[in-house]
């Protein structure tokens, strides 16, 4: 099926969905050749050969048996397809007891992750292999989507509602998550990853407080990774053509004009404040649309980001 799907099947569910796809494909190819074959065959065979022989076609106005058959046969075929698609879907929708629960909230333009033990993350979900996972989905501002192509599942994320999605990740690996509901300028960059880890590695990772990069990773290096993962670059370019917010390079230490007419030096405190409370001092000429990272980035992560920004001279 790999030539049909751009994504491999990452779970038993996905393989069953591929089964439905394959069945419909086989039926579709059959009817394609049947109908197109007859269309082309008749068009070629019964083309007018002599200009004056056009009044000698037989008067055939219909055939009740044919009409009956081509109502009956398609009806049976579509009921069969419906039934198969429905069964596989229903199995997919019933959550298995004991699933790990992960809360995912979407906003323009990132996914905020919350684990039951209180850990938070942005745009990256880590789960152990072999255990069912239930995603509890919500949205803050507009509609977003949560699409895991490798698992063949998708669910809308809707303000004011909670939707759920359930997968059984069998194989360790890193799987792409896409936003599939158009949500504004940053929509096409609204991406996240589901990282399925072997159970031992996952346990170790949780034990280390869900930190990556080890204890001795320099702050600026860690900051750079967070800037990439947390979706900062959807709105901020490091340099070059500006996106929605100010560019990063050369920001630290510069004098920035504010909306209220004052101006301020972009020091550590200003950068930190702009991450946890972006609306406090809005830079002149940019829309006040940045969400707060107060709840999603722990203090040491904000420090790391600030350290990274300081290196961009």
């Amino acid at each position, binding site marked *: 099926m790999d030539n049909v799907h751009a994504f491999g099947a990452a779970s038993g569910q996905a393989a069953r969905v591929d089964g439905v796809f394959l069945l419909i494909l086989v039926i579709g190819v059959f009817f394609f050749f049947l109908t197109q074959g007859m*269309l082309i065959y008749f068009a070629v065979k*019964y083309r007018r050969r002599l200009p004056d022989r056009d009044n000698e*076609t037989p008067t055939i106005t219909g055939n009740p048996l044919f009409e009956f058959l081509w109502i009956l046969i398609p009806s049976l075929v579509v009921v069969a397809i419906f039934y198969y698609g429905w069964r596989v879907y229903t199995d997919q929708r019933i959550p298995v007891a004991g699933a790990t629960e992960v809360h995912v909230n979407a906003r323009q333009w990132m996914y905020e992750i919350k684990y039951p033990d209180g850990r938070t993350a942005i745009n990256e979900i880590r789960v152990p292999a072999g255990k069912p996972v239930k995603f509890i989905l919500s949205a803050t501002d507009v509609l977003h989507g949560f699409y895991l192509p490798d698992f063949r599942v998708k669910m809308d994320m809707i303000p004011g509602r909670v939707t759920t999605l359930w997968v059984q990740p069998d194989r360790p690996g890193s799987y792409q998550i896409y936003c599939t509901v158009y949500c504004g300028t940053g929509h096409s960059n609204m991406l996240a990853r589901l990282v399925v880890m072997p159970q031992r590695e996952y346990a170790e990772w949780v034990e280390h407080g869900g930190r990556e990069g080890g204890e001795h990773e320099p702050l600026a290096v860690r900051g750079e990774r967070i800037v990439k993962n947390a979706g900062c670059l959807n709105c901020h370019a490091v340099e070059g053509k500006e996106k929605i917010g100010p560019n990063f390079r050369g920001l630290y230490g510069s004098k920035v004009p504010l909306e209220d007419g004052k101006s301020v030096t972009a020091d550590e405190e200003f950068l930190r404040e702009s991450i946890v409370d972006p609306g406090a001092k809005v830079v002149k000429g940019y829309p006040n649309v940045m969400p707060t990272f107060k709840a999603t980035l722990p203090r040491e992560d904000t420090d790391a980001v600030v350290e990274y920004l300081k290196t961009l001279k």
Partner: protein
Amino acid sequence: MPVETESGNGRGYLTERGWRSWAFTLDHKRIGAMYLWSTIVFFLIGGVFALLLRLELLSPQAKYFSNHTYNVFFTLHGSMMIFLFIIPAIPSGLGNFFVPLHIGARDVAFPRLNLASYWVFAAGFLVIIGSLVAPMDTGWTFYTPYSAKSAAAVTTLSLGIFLIGMSSILTGLNFLVTIHKMRAPGMTWHRLPLFIWGMYATSIIQVVATPVVGVTFLLLAAERLLGVGFFDPSKGGDPVLFQHFFWFYSHPVVYVMILPAMGIVSEVIPVFSRKPIFGYDAIAYSSLAIAFIGFLVWGHHMFTSGMSPLANAIFSFLTFFVAVPTAVKVFNWIATLYKGSITFESPMLYALTFIFLFIVGGLTGPFLGALATNVQLHDTYFVVAHFHYTMMGGTVMGFFAGLHYWFPKMTGKMLNEKVARAAWALVFVGFNVTFFTMFIHVENVISTIGSAVLAAGILLMCWNFLQGLRKGAPAPANPWRALTLEWKAASPPDTENFHEIPVVTEWPYGYGTPKA
């Protein structure tokens, strides 16, 4: 029915000159022509937006336009093509011209209402053009809360579409009454051309479904202007409600787009096969069946919106039953070709292309109707490809078939057939290269090249139309030797269509007999 034609009394409907003769005309043919000009212009503009999208998609890096501009382009492409072209083009354009001629009437039942519907339409597109001061980037579906919060001129655009919808209701209503009340003596329901059956089913949908989208856009405007939170969860509303309202119209309306095109194909196939249509009753009633079932399936656009699995299952089940009457039509068209004496003039080429492409569009439908695969494919390029195969491969090819078929009747001039066939070849190849690639992996470079070929074909076709208008050879009254009543009128028809209202004694598909 022998092919007898009227010679025309020299008072063709195009005789009168001056803008007043158009702006205040009550002639269904002139109103139809105004609709055709307007919708074709919007088709070309909407097509330019599509080409700009394809240009940007040549490479993954944004090269030519910003993200926002790209989003504006796909919104304008979608909303122009849907609301200003594909919904009105066949029903209001060709429909206005040919419904009265087909049933042997002098005009529609309410000519003033008909003119009003055009000017409401014109007001609608002027308002929509006005919304370009702050062009919208919500996609043609206007999903809330994004559309409720957007700083773009969403309110203006939705009021424009409200007007377009109103015009659509007026036209539908007019045709329903016309088809019921204005048929020539002897024109029983089972002697009606199949184009009329398609238009009848279309009109029912327009009258019943369009008010819902009108109300929906008013609610959206109220939400934006007055702060009423119909769709805003913080005020007790629900964004999913908008989707239910929107699709309650916007699903049935795809049959407003396709049923008249199917009607055109049902006319063209027998004429160029010199065979009676196969399964007249089945084709006629399947139009009504599609219109009816089409009202019950809107939820299949919302399988991932958090609806209950049971509701999803019911919508999925019903969805599959649209496939049956559609398949019945395709089988009957193909059976009509059997033992025919087929020629391949441009109307026939487009009609056969309709069947060919519509089969691809139709067979990719079950992937989207089945729940398990829908959840995977929803909101992906697969849907874009499926939709364009049915709408562009279907409706637009049917529209092109109709334009080529009726060009001599509408203008009194013949088209250059060689150029028409060359344009068809470009359209056929360009279309498949552009859209087939979208089903599998999106091969953007190939798809963009295809779109350029497609555009070249359409431009050549338009040039051919203009050349035909300017210096085409005079058309006889019945160049295709067809039996429907419009061919009894002169080319172009006189203002009152027929000197004497024809008396109908047979159905119009008696081809292949010594008479025709």
